[in-house]
C-alpha cells in the first residue's frame, strides 16, 4: 500500500471506514457511555466520595476542605454507647416488625389463596396500606393513636383518655411504659408491610403444582404433612426474598418514624437512620461522622443480606 493511498484512501477503503463508523460496537458505545458517565456521576462517584469523607473531619456547610482523620470517625462511632443503643433499637424494630410481617403475611396468603366470591376485592383492599406513602401513613396513625379522639383507643375499649394508653408518648394511664412508643411504630410498620409478604407468599402458593397435593392425598398424607413438606418448602424461597427486602428496608427505616415521633420521646424511637439524618442535617451538618455512620450501616445491611441470600441459595440447592 502506497503512502498516498494510506492518506487519502481508495473508495473501497473509505466505504469500509464508513461501515466501521456505523458498526454495532460503535452504536453500543454511543449509547452506553453517556449512561455510564451519568451512573458514575450520580451513583458511583458519591459512593466513593462519601467513603473518602468518612475518613475526614468535614462539614458540608463549612466550605472548608475536608481534613483527613483516618479511622477516627469509625472509632468514635464504634465506641459510643449511645450509637450502639440506636443500633440495638433498630435491631429490635427490624426483628419484631419483619417477624410479624412474615408470619401474618403468610397466614393471610394461606387464607385467601383459594378463589372465593369477592376474593379479588379483598386482596386489593389488603394491599392498600403498602401502596400509601410512609409519611401519610405516619400522620394517619398519629391521629389514630390520639388518646382523645383516635380510633385506636376506642377500639381497645378505652373512652377515658386519662386511663387510656398514649401510645406515642410511651404512657399508659399517665404512667411511663418502657418502649411503648417503639412498639407503636412497629405496629404501624406491620400494618403497612404485611401485605407485601402476603403478596409474595400468595404468588408462591399459587405456583405450587397441584399434582404434588394429589400425590400426597393418594399417599394419605395428613394436612399437616402436606403443609410442612409441600407448601412451606415450595413457598420458602419467595418468602425469604420478601424477608430480605423487608429486612433491608427496616434497617434503614426513616420516614415512618420521623412522621410519627421524630425519634422521640427521648430516644425511644431513635432508629439509626433517624440519628444519621440528625447528624448529617438538622443544624449539625457533621458530614464526616455521618458518612462514617452511613458506611457502618451499609456494612451491616450487606452482612445481614448476605446471610439471608445464603439461606435462600441453600434452600434452592436443597430443593
Amino acid at each position, binding site marked *: 500500500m502506497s503512502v498516498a493511498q494510506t492518506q487519502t484512501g481508495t473508495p473501497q477503503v473509505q466505504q469500509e471506514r464508513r461501515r466501521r463508523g456505523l458498526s454495532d460496537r460503535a452504536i453500543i458505545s454511543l449509547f452506553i457511555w453517556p449512561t455510564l458517565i451519568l451512573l458514575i456521576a450520580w451513583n458511583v*462517584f458519591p459512593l466513593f466520595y462519601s467513603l473518602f469523607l468518612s475518613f475526614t473531619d468535614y462539614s*458540608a456547610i463549612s466550605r472548608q476542605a475536608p481534613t483527613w482523620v483516618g479511622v477516627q470517625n469509625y472509632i468514635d462511632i464504634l465506641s459510643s454507647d449511645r450509637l450502639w443503643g440506636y443500633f440495638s433499637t433498630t435491631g429490635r424494630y427490624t426483628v419484631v416488625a419483619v417477624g410479624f410481617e412474615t408470619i401474618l403475611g403468610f397466614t393471610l396468603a394461606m387464607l385467601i389463596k383459594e378463589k372465593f366470591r369477592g376474593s379479588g376485592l379483598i386482596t386489593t383492599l389488603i394491599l392498600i396500606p403498602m401502596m400509601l406513602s410512609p409519611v401519610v401513613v405516619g400522620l394517619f396513625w398519629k391521629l389514630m393513636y390520639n388518646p*382523645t379522639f383516635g380510633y385506636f383507643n376506642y377500639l381497645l375499649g378505652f373512652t377515658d383518655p*386519662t386511663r387510656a394508653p398514649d401510645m406515642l408518648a410511651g404512657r399508659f394511664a399517665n404512667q411511663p411504659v418502657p418502649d411503648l412508643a417503639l412498639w407503636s411504630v412497629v405496629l404501624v410498620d406491620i400494618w403497612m408491610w404485611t401485605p407485601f409478604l402476603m403478596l409474595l407468599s400468595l404468588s408462591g402458593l399459587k405456583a405450587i403444582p397441584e399434582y404434588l397435593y394429589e400425590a400426597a392425598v393418594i399417599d394419605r398424607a395428613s394436612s399437616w404433612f402436606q403443609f410442612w413438606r409441600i407448601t412451606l418448602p415450595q413457598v420458602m424461597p419467595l418468602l425469604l426474598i420478601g424477608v430480605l427486602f423487608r429486612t433491608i428496608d427496616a434497617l434503614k427505616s426513616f420516614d415512618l418514624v*420521623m412522621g410519627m415521633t421524630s425519634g*422521640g*420521646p427521648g430516644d425511644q424511637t*431513635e432508629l439509626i437512620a433517624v440519628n444519621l439524618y440528625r447528624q448529617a*442535617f438538622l*443544624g449539625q451538618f457533621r458530614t464526616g461522622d455521618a458518612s462514617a455512620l452511613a458506611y457502618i450501616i451499609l456494612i451491616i445491611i450487606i452482612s445481614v443480606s448476605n446471610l439471608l441470600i445464603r439461606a435462600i441459595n441453600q434452600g434452592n440447592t436443597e430443593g
Partner: protein
Amino acid sequence: MRKHLLPLSLIMILAMLFSACVPAAPAQPVAEAPAEEAPAVEEGPAVDELNILWAQWDPADYLQQTADLYEEETGIKVNVVQEPWPSFYDLFAAEVAAGGDTWDMVVGDSQWIGQMTSEGHYMDLTDFLNETGLADSVVPATLTYYGEYPAGSGSYWAYPTEGDADGWGYRKDLFEDPDEMAAFEAEYGYPLDVPETYEQFMDIAKFFTRPSEGLYGVGIYTKKAYDAITMGVENTMFPWGADWKDENNNVLGVVNSPEAVAALEYYKELYDCCQGPGLSDAFFTEVNDAMINGSIAMAMNYFAFFPALVNSGTNPDYYDKIGFFANPKGPDGHGGAALGGQGLSVVSHVSPERQQAALDFIEWFGQDDIQAKWAEFGGYTTNSKVFESEEFLNATPYNRAFADTMTFVKDFWNIPIFGQLLEITQREFGKYIIEGEGTAQEAMDTIAEEHDKILRDAGYITE
C-alpha cells in the same frame, strides 16, 4: 492496552469529579470590596428581580405584600420564596454550602447567625446598617439577637425583620365566665385572671384540666424535632433565673443550677398534670390545633403563629374568644421568654450588583413608614417608633403582649455548633418530661457535662 482503557477512563472521570468537588476556600466577603464604578444605566435598574427565602408561614405572606409596594415604587420585583419549616434550614444550608446564588436574601433564624457568618455565607452589614441609620431605628434587643455576631462585637449580619417570642393564648370565654371565676376563687382564694406568675399559672392549668369534659389546662411544646421542646423549657428556665451559660460560656453549675432543675421539674409537672392529650410530639401547629378544637385552656406559642387563632376562617369556634398574655414571672419575680424571630441577611455568594440591589431593598424596607405598613399587614416590626406606637400595640389582640415579651426575651446558643448542643437538650428533655425517665437533676447534669465537652472541643471554653 485497549483492555485497560475502560478502567483507566473510569479512574480519570472519578479523579476529575473528586477534584471538582473539593470545597473551595471560603469566599472573601464581597461586600467589603469597594463598589466598582459602573456606567450609568439609563434603561432601568441592572437588577429587576430579587429573591428572598423564608419559611412558609403568615409573616412571609405579609413580607410579600410589603415587597409588592417596592415593586410599585421601583419596578424591581421581589419574590418571597416560602419553604416549609421542617426543610427550611436544610434547604438554605445546602444551597449556601455549595456557594449557590438562588436567593439574594434570607430571613434566617436567630440561631443560624453564628454558623452562617463564620462560614462566610452572610454579607457583613455593619457599615450599611450604621451609615443608613437602620441600626439605630430598631429595638436594641432585636439588633443584638437577630443581627449581631459575636455577641457584643458591634458586627451586624442581618436587619432585624420579624420580631418574635413565645407567649400565651388563653380562652377568654372560660376565664371570664362568672361561674368559673367564682369556682376558681373559692378553690384558690384569689380571683381568676391572666396569670402574672408561674405559681398562678399552675393553679389555672390544674383548674381547667377536666378530662371528663374533654378540657385540659395547657398545650406546651414537646416535639423532639429541631428545637421545639428546648424552646418550651426555656420559657420556664429564664423566669426561674436560669440560663444556658454564664458570661464566659461556662455551663457546669449554670445549666444544672438549682434554678434550672426547679424550672425543668415545673415543666414536667405541667406536662403530667395538664397537657392536652395527644400532645406528646407537639410544636406550633399541634398546639394551635388543640386551641382551635377547644381542648385546651392556654396555649404556648410564638406570637407569629397567633394570627391563626384569631382568624374566623381557621378558628371558626373561638376566633373572638382568645386573649393573649406574656410569659408569667418565675418564683423570684424574674421575667424571661424564649426568643423567636428572624433577621434579613444578604447572601454573600450573589454578585455585587445583586448585593447592592438587596441593600437598596433593605434600606427601603427599614424606613419608618414602610415598617408601619409591614406592621399593618401583620408583620412583627422591630422598628422602635412603630413598635412603641399605640397604633401598633392596639392593631391586634396579641401585639401588646408581644411588646411586653420583647423586653425580657433570651435566646439559645447561636454559635456555629448550636445544632450539636440542641441535639442533647432535645433528647434529655424528651427523656425526662415525656418518657418520665430519671430526674430533672440527672437530665440537667447530663446536658451540662455534654455541653461542656462540646464547647471545650470547639474552643469556646478554654480555662
